[in-house]
């Protein structure tokens, strides 16, 4: 009886070993030759969009165009024809780097009253959301860019854009953000959200764009 049980355990152990061996044989392996590189195209972690990548050396070129498409390449030999990794392969091969990616930046646009550094009511209501985005990051750094519409002179609009940007900087003062972690700049009337001619009232161009990284 005991012997039978041991035999079953042994058989199970063998099956388990075989299964593991098969699984590891199937899973993709990283580059092995010295200096060899494996390059994989991945969906964007936030939007799932898939871009394109071109792997090139003196011996040839291979394009990566679909999700988890991968090639291997060494110096002096052309990139190998592509294959497609499973999501599990991607985790096994690259997970340790992917997990260390910083969180994606967040963008906000706040709008202002005409010829004023005063926020519109709707934009003022967005302030808590921006403050939250800053606070949820261990080491935030923030870019604040002021813009104007095309009424007034270029010089006065540069100054107005800067005043608007500083209004936003003051909004973020309570977050304890270090001065060195904030960049405040003005583009005046040079980067319009809605293209217009000169001297045109356009509420959507009276704005501050904020990037929280």
């Amino acid at each position: 009886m005991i012997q039978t049980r041991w035999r079953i355990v042994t058989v199970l152990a063998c099956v388990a070993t075989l299964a593991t061996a098969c699984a590891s044989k199937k899973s993709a392996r990283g580059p092995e030759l010295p200096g060899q590189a494996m390059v994989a195209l991945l969906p964007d972690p936030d939007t799932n969009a898939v871009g394109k990548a071109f792997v090139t050396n003196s011996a040839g070129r291979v394009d990566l165009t679909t999700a988890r498409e991968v090639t291997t390449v060494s110096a002096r030999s052309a990139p190998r024809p592509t294959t497609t990794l499973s999501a599990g392969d991607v985790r096994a091969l690259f997970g340790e780097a992917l997990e260390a990616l910083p969180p994606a930046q967040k963008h906000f646009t706040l709008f202002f009253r005409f010829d004023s550094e005063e926020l519109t009511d709707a934009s003022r209501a967005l302030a808590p959301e921006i403050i939250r985005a800053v606070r949820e990051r261990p080491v935030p750094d923030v870019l604040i860019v002021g813009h104007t519409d095309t009424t007034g002179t270029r010089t006065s609009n540069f100054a107005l854009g800067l005043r608007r940007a500083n209004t936003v900087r003051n909004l973020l003062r309570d977050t304890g953000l270090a001065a060195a972690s904030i960049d405040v700049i003005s583009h005046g009337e040079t980067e319009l959200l809605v293209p217009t001619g000169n001297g045109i009232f356009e509420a959507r161009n009276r704005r501050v764009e904020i990037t929280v990284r």
Partner: protein
Amino acid sequence: MRVHAAIVAIVSLLVAVPARAAEQPAPAGQIKVVSGSAFIVRGDTVLPAAVGQRVFESDKVRTGSDGRLGITLKDDTRFSLGPNSEVHLERFAYAPAEGHLALALNVVRGIAAYVSGRIAKLSPDAVRLETPGAIVGVRGTTLALSVSPK
């Protein structure tokens, strides 16, 4: 007379700004994620990497066997290293108004991930990812790379 003084003031500003820029270059980005052993190699100096630290063009970043590192650059490009990895930030220029855009990351060994930022959007050809045997060009994309040591 007043005009003359203003011109002198403007000229001295123009002279002063590039001089200061040469002394202390603008940071290219910031370390956002660190665990285990991770280092910045800046010239002959090896600095332990810490969250919040600035990185500059020409810096090399390196991790030990338990190390991880994640960096966000000023153009929103993000990249990260797994253990036993080394990446060189060979080029970084982000001044869209002046048309200066360049990013070159050299993955020397180990595992790295890359998520493109504004430079790749504004000027895709300005981005180069290098490995020992090939160059990778990107079009608005996320990549993972693994390079075995030489």
